């Protein structure tokens, strides 16, 4: 068909094409290497001061939990004699907690506790693994390592309170499938790590900015850890250590302690820091506001505006709790909303419906939509005082020293002091302290651990008519997603 010249040419072309292709194929393996232009190379992050510091801050972000802090509060209170909830989408999850019908699929366990806490652990591990090779001063290396160690220990302490022993990851390269540690391993790890961290952390007030770790924060976490694990003497001593910093003190007016303008006051040892911005807001008040709330003579400074959200869900307080507080003298009751004026200027009495008092602890006139700026306390100085009192009572029964500690808190609230005549026995004082803690710490997410420590978590639930409440409920189930993806991790007993 074609003459020989053409045939030759055609062969030549095909041949050269194949040759070029082979060259191209070899060359393009390299050509396909890409560097993500919008992401950071590990070398720059893990070897520089600013890089490793940024990873450390990611670990902080994991435990700070500004917006989900309302779940940490509610999950720890609607399961107790203090909190209650109705309505709205959040009631989907909260009703399971109220009724003790939760299971491993309950989303808040995973989304608000397990996942962010383990992210903080992941980032702390990265810092600790790489800190020796970072190009920075020895002082910074020591500081960052101590902060990472503290954050990781606090994270495990939080997980331990909610879930009991969990997989103890201390390296970013550990096997994905990791079994739970034993109870002893968990406790030993938390204690040892906090103790190590305390040594290298700055004194209270000497940290770079409020909410960065310091000795007081770590010592307080350790004190609460000892208390919740019933290591009474150690707890009493650790509380003493916090008091000995002579840095912390009670804020004079209870009802103003949680205001945005008083943030970082010397009672706030550790907080979930919040801002009135998307992603950083404290949403508690949006849920606590009763329908059509406008203002109340209890808190006349707070006036609802259309700039503020008012959720369909209703965060409520149980009558069994609110009926016990002295609404005449106890300034802590000011923030327990019992009546209000609604947007139609009609007065509404919340007491006419059971379990309907609202906690206004986090009211903020600068609230933007859902977002209030109030920090949520994790550990307050009042907690250290009451914890030491409780520990001393457990060690050696009622003492004036214990009462003094309690009375410091009661005096600030404006109610009468306790005397040895009130504290007739260890048991009596124990109950007085537990009651005091309810009044002092409502809407701060401490009630569940307090009841667990006092062995009342299950018995009080049964007393509320929750017949299904059982010992297994003392721990939450490991989130189902972890169980599904981590075959080495066994579910908590009973779930």
């Amino acid at each position: 068909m074609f003459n020989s010249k053409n045939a030759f040419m055609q062969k030549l072309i095909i041949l050269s094409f194949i040759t070029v292709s082979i060259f191209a194929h070899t060359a393009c393996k390299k050509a396909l290497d890409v560097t993500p232009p919008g992401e950071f190379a590990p070398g720059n992050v893990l070897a520089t001061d600013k890089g490793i510091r940024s990873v450390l801050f990611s670990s902080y972000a994991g435990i700070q939990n500004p917006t989900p802090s309302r779940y940490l509060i509610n999950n720890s209170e609607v399961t107790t004699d203090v909190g209650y909830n109705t309505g709205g989408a959040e009631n989907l999850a909260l009703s399971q907690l109220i009724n003790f019908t939760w299971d491993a699929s309950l989303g808040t366990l995973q989304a608000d506790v397990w996942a962010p806490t383990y992210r903080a652990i992941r980032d702390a591990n990265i810092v600790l693994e790489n800190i020796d090779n970072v190009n920075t001063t020895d002082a910074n290396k020591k500081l960052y390592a101590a902060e990472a160690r503290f954050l990781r220990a606090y994270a495990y302490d939080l997980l331990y309170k909610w879930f009991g022993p969990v997989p103890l990851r201390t390296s970013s390269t550990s096997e994905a499938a990791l079994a739970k540690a034993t109870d002893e391993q968990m406790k030993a790890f938390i204690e040892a790590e906090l103790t190590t961290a305390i040594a290298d952390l700055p004194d209270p007030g000497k940290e770079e900015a409020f909410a960065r770790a310091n000795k007081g924060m770590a010592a307080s976490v350790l004190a609460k850890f000892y208390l919740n694990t019933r290591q009474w003497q150690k707890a009493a001593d650790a509380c003493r250590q916090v008091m000995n910093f002579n840095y912390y003190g009670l804020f004079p007016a209870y009802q103003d302690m949680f205001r945005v303008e008083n943030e970082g006051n010397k009672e706030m040892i550790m907080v979930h820091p919040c801002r009135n911005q998307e992603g950083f807001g404290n949403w508690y008040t949006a849920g606590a506001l009763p329908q059509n709330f406008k203002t109340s003579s209890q808190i006349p400074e707070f006036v609802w505006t259309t700039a503020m959200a008012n959720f369909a869900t209703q965060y409520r307080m149980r009558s069994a709790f609110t009926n016990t507080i002295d609404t005449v003298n106890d300034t802590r009751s000011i923030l327990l909303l019992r009546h209000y004026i609604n947007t139609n200027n009609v007065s509404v009495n919340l007491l006419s419906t059971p379990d309907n008092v609202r906690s206004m602890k986090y009211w903020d006139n600068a609230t933007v939509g859902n977002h209030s700026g109030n920090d949520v306390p994790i550990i307050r100085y009042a907690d250290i005082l009451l914890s030491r009192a409780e520990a001393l009572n457990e060690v050696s029964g009622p003492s004036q020293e214990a009462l003094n500690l309690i009375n410091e808190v009661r005096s600030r609230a404006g109610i009468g002091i306790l005397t040895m005549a009130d504290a007739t026995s260890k048991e009596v004082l124990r109950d007085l302290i537990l009651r005091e803690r309810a009044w002092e710490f409502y809407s701060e997410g401490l009630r569940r651990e307090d009841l667990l420590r006092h062995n009342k978590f299950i018995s009080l639930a049964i007393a509320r008519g929750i017949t299904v409440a059982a010992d297994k409920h003392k721990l939450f189930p490991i989130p189902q997603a972890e169980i599904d993806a981590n075959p080495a991790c066994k579910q908590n007993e009973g779930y």
Partner: protein
Amino acid sequence: MTIPPPSSGMYSGIHVCEYPLKTNETMNNMPKNSTRLLLIKLLLFSTLLANAQSRTIRGKASSADNGTPLPNVTVLLKGSNSRTTTDANGDFSIPVSGNNAVLLFYLVNYSTKEVPVGDKTTVDVTLELKNENLGEVVVVGYGTVKKSDVTGAVVSLKSKDLTPGANINVEQTLQGRASGVQVYQKSGEPGSAMSVKIRGASSITAGNDPLYVIDGMPVNNLSPVTGSGAGFVATPNPRNPLNSLNPADIESIEILKDASATAIYGSRGSNGVVMITTKKGKSGKLSINYSTYYGIQKASNSLELLNGQQYKEVLNAIIDAGGGVASERVTNDPVNVDWQKELYRTANVQSHDLSISGGKDNTRFYASLGYFNQEGVLLNSGVKRYTARLNLENSVAQKYAFGINFNTSYIRDNYNSVGLGVNENGSALYAAINYDPSYPVYNPDGSFNRSPYMTTIDHPLILANGQYANSDGFRTFGTVYGEYFFMPGLSVKLKGAGDVNITQRNTWLDPSTILGSPTGGIASINTGNVNYYMGEATVNYKTSFGQDHALNAVAGGTYEHFGSNSFGGNGRGYALPDLTYNAIGTGNSTLNQIGSGRASTKIISFLGRVNYTYKDRYLLTASFRADGSSRFGSNNRFGYFPSAAVAWKMHEESFLKGVSFVNELKFRLSYGVIGNQSIANYLYITTFSGGGNAIFGGERYTSLAPSRVANPDLKWEAAKQADIGIDFALFDNRLTGSVEYYDRRTSDLLLDLPQPLSTGFGVKTQNIGRMKNTGIDLHLAGDVFRNSQGFNWNVGAVLSTVKNEVLSLGPLSQIFTGGAGFISNASIIRPGASLGSYYGYEVLGVWQSHDDFSTAPVGVKPGDLKFRDVDGNKQINADDRVILGKSLPDFTYGITNTFGYKRFSLSVFLEGSQGASVLNNAAIDSYFPVSFRRNKLAKPYLNRWTPENPTNEYPSFINPTSQGQQTVNSKTVEDASYLRLQSVRLSYDFKLRNKVIRGLQAYVTGQNLFTITNYSGIDPAVNSIGDDILKIDYSSYPMTRSFLFGLNVQF
């Protein structure tokens, strides 16, 4: 399916494509050329013989089709140099000797015929027109083939076959037109993308959109701007980047369905390929076309909600019966506000297209301008588009060819707040559905009146006017190519293509809205560009050897680069909100936020294909592509995608030659491996990205966190697809069609495999799992009446079935996914079930007073919903969930009836879908209300259970969440089967004796005229979550009914 013959109605080529500049022209001419060569050889051979004449044979050649005489038929005495041609009457005479003589009759476009003469003196022959029109070719990857020689499953649609009407994008025109292609409109929002799936869904996470190729350029269909402005209710139905292409510029669309057709696109082929070819100029007189239409659109449906009076009666009655709270009693004297109507309007749509085409000597051109303006039926929504195109070609046949295709567009989108937000984040439509209908819209002073009971939902009209966004999109793309022919059968073609898509989206939340007021207004500007360039070199070679063998081959390589950049910023706190986003910097600067992103991908490919034909009956196609993608780890950089297909034109066999009613019968078989790589970039690289902000001393501090668990072993999803099909044309081509069966098995599915959360990571993208899609594509077209007394009636029908089955999820037993509003995990993916399976509770009825309550869950009362207690533990909990239906239909279909009478033409197009379900989220909000005072669907509440009305259909709604929130259940997952009269078009061709205007056609079209369905929501096809697979109807932008009047004028 291949292309039926020209007379087959629905798929008929109204326009014979010209591809004179492509190598394919020579290929198209190949049979002719080879026959010529044959003739020459015969002539040469015959000169060696010298035979004496003994007699003269006379005869007539005529058309087998209609008996008309055929002039210019070459008549050749086989084995001699003796030849003649027929005259104008088809008559010939030729001398022969002996009784063994054989005459050959040859005419272009007709089948060659051999007739033994014997002792006859008269030989009359009829010649059959070849089924395949030589001019008609089908565009496939990196070339074209004669349509009779297609071996794969390819649908070819010409511009006239596409659905007429107000179509902003290409997909809309495909609905119900092509078998095996499932197209549905997810929303009536102007310009929103449609769902297009070719033979179902082949992937779980790596995308199910087909690859679009416009004039040989693979289209990078990423949106330059994703997400929405700060605080703005998202618009989940994304805009379709293909909106930039004016449908009026489309000459043809080919849909490649099977592996043999798509494997040439390798790692992007597994979801099928849509090849779009734009119009070309023709040599000759300058042709000017102007087409226009104008129409009106209305919302085709709205939800039936309680009116003010009913609202008062029903809510108060429920409170009386023990539900709700006394303080929520409706005490005002109700008005009846239909909030949906307050947001709807009658909207205009208009379109103008002007094109000029022509050519002289070696140069041809097509140029067009287009303008399209569609208002949305929802206030403040709509789209405007301006397009321009230039296609230019210059060629000297079989020497060289050059050309460019150039398209540029500007699109202005206006978005209302449409989306899935709830409560104060709800869209205007969400608010309209939920808002108190008993309070008037306006205060006496004319301002908007907010109901005091709706503090968590904003006034629908305040939302419609105070939350909006718009975008300006500029997209320019085009190709340039040059081809040089070394020889008639051998050419090298170089092609370059580029595509730049730049978009800016502005968003505004006015301080008058609930969301905008706290911050004094929120303005956002998001900009981005998506860019693409490509270089391609191919060698095309074609030859034939001997009489029976023809070969056509292409080989080449391509380099492609995909880039994207984005930048976004938002501001808050505007003292004066007048200037909105136009003065974004005038807010409170401490609240400003900015962000940016940048990414790129490369693909380097080598490809080749061989088409071999034996005796013009047996066809073999084999193709191969090697793709190297920067999306995959260094351990798996290159993927290899082979395919093969055979076809047998049975009608060319002698045993079918005599069967007069068979015009075409072709049997096809194909198999191949194709891939999918539509996943995020960089998944194999360990890096750090921005983490959450930490707060110290009340200030925010940025952080860095590991981006992902890197997987260096990542590779493409592989699909193995087998296809078997038959094409036929029967009874003088009156009945044509094709039937195909396919089986596609996807393995190495790209899945985000959950990691133990205790690692600090959520997922790791891995190649895990397998999935199967099988189905039948059926296409039929028939001429019921063919020009009998000026009357024509043609029926065309397509039917596509898809059965999807997940075969394996690797180590996972199931994956929960999907949701909207307050609902999550509405769907389950698990082996044995179809993708898009709804998972929830089966409602058996309503508990009645006389029921045996000993088996009932604790606390259940008469009037509560009775759920199936699957495990019989007297508790309705997560363990009682079952699969309730699936979002993928069993089959979809389209039927077009075209009636022609003289100059009138009437086209009636029905389309439907059977067997799919949809989650009705509006029903969920009524069955499980988040707040008592929100409005409800009328039917369940007006017919609710009461002691006096012990219905088994609807509960009492007294304590709707008494058993928990079984939101996804057999009442809220509804059958979404439907049959729709999608369009009716009546047109008239004017007969003009006018030198200026050469043609004039006028038409009226009605779209979406009625729908037959049992679905209780606004439309069975809507999908508010923008997902390819799962369908949820929630605050959906309404579908529209439209009436258009149009004119086409040719000058």
